[in-house]
C-alpha cells in the first residue's frame, strides 16, 4: 500500500504550536461600526432605492421583450414606409 504522505504531513502540521491569538488592531471596531452606520444611513435616506432598482430592472426586461417580439415588424417598417411615401409622391406629381 502506498504511504499516505498527506496524512503524515497533516499530522505534523497539526502538532505545530498554535498561532498567537489575533489582537484587534486599534480602531478596527470603530471602523466597522462607522461603516455599518453609513450603510444604514444610506438605506434610510433612500428607502425606495431597492423598489426603484426593481422597477428599473422590470422596465428594462419589458423593453427588451417588446423589442424581441416586434423585431420583425420594426425591421420591415422602414422599406414599407418609404414605399408608401414614394407612391404618394408619384400620385401627387401625376398630371
Amino acid at each position, binding site marked *: 500500500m*502506498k*504511504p*499516505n*504522505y*498527506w*496524512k*503524515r*504531513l*497533516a499530522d*505534523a*502540521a*497539526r*502538532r*505545530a*504550536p498554535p*498561532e498567537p*491569538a*489575533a489582537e*484587534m*488592531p486599534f480602531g*478596527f*471596531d*470603530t*471602523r*466597522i*461600526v462607522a*461603516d*455599518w*452606520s453609513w*450603510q*444604514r444611513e444610506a438605506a434610510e435616506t433612500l428607502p425606495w432605492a431597492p423598489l426603484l432598482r426593481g422597477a428599473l430592472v422590470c422596465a428594462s426586461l419589458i423593453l427588451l421583450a417588446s423589442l424581441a417580439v416586434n423585431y420583425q415588424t420594426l425591421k420591415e417598417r422602414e422599406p414599407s414606409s418609404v414605399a408608401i411615401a414614394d407612391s404618394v409622391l408619384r400620385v401627387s406629381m401625376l398630371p
Partner: protein
Amino acid sequence: MAEAGLDMAACVERVRRKDEDAARVLVRELYPLIMKIVRSHLPRRTDEEDLAQMVFGKIFAHLEQYSGNVPIEHWVSRVAVNTCLNQLRSEKCRPELRWADLNEAEAEVLEKIASTSREPDPSEQLVSRDLARKMLETLSPKDRLILTMLDLEERSVEEIRERSGWNASLIKVRAFRARKKLRKQFARVMEQER
C-alpha cells in the same frame, strides 16, 4: 467564546436596535473567532484584516436574518466560512506546486515525509504547516476548505456541515477526492525531485 458575564443574545438584540456601543462590543467579542477562520482559509494576496472587515460587514448587514435558534458564534462562523469561500473562488488560478517552489526547509520536510521511516522533527512542525497550506492552495476552494477543517483543524463532518451548510455525504465524497488529488500532487512533486 463570549467573555464571562456578557450576554451575547442581549448584545445582539441591542445591535438590532442600532446601538453602536453594543456593535463595538460585538466586534470585540467576535474578532478572535473570525480571525481564526479567516487565517485558516485566507486566499493568497489577500489581507486578513480586509477579509475580516468584509466578514463583519456581512454580519451587520444580515443580522436581521439571524434567528437566534443557534448560538451567534455558529451563525457568524457560517458567514465567515462562506465569505472566505467566495474570496477563494475569486482567485482565478490555483498554482501547481513544483519542487523548485519549495524553500530548503520545506524540501527537507517533504523528503522526510516521503521516507516512511522518519517523521518531521518538532522544530519542523511550523514548516509542515506552511507546506500543508501550500499543498491545499492547489485544490479547488471547496476541497481546500473541507480538508483544512477535516485534516488540519480535526473538525468532524457534522461540524463542517454546520459551518458550511453542505450535506455530510458531499463533504465525505469531496474529502476523498481531494485527498486523492493531493496524493497525485505529492507524487508529481517527488518525481520532479528525482
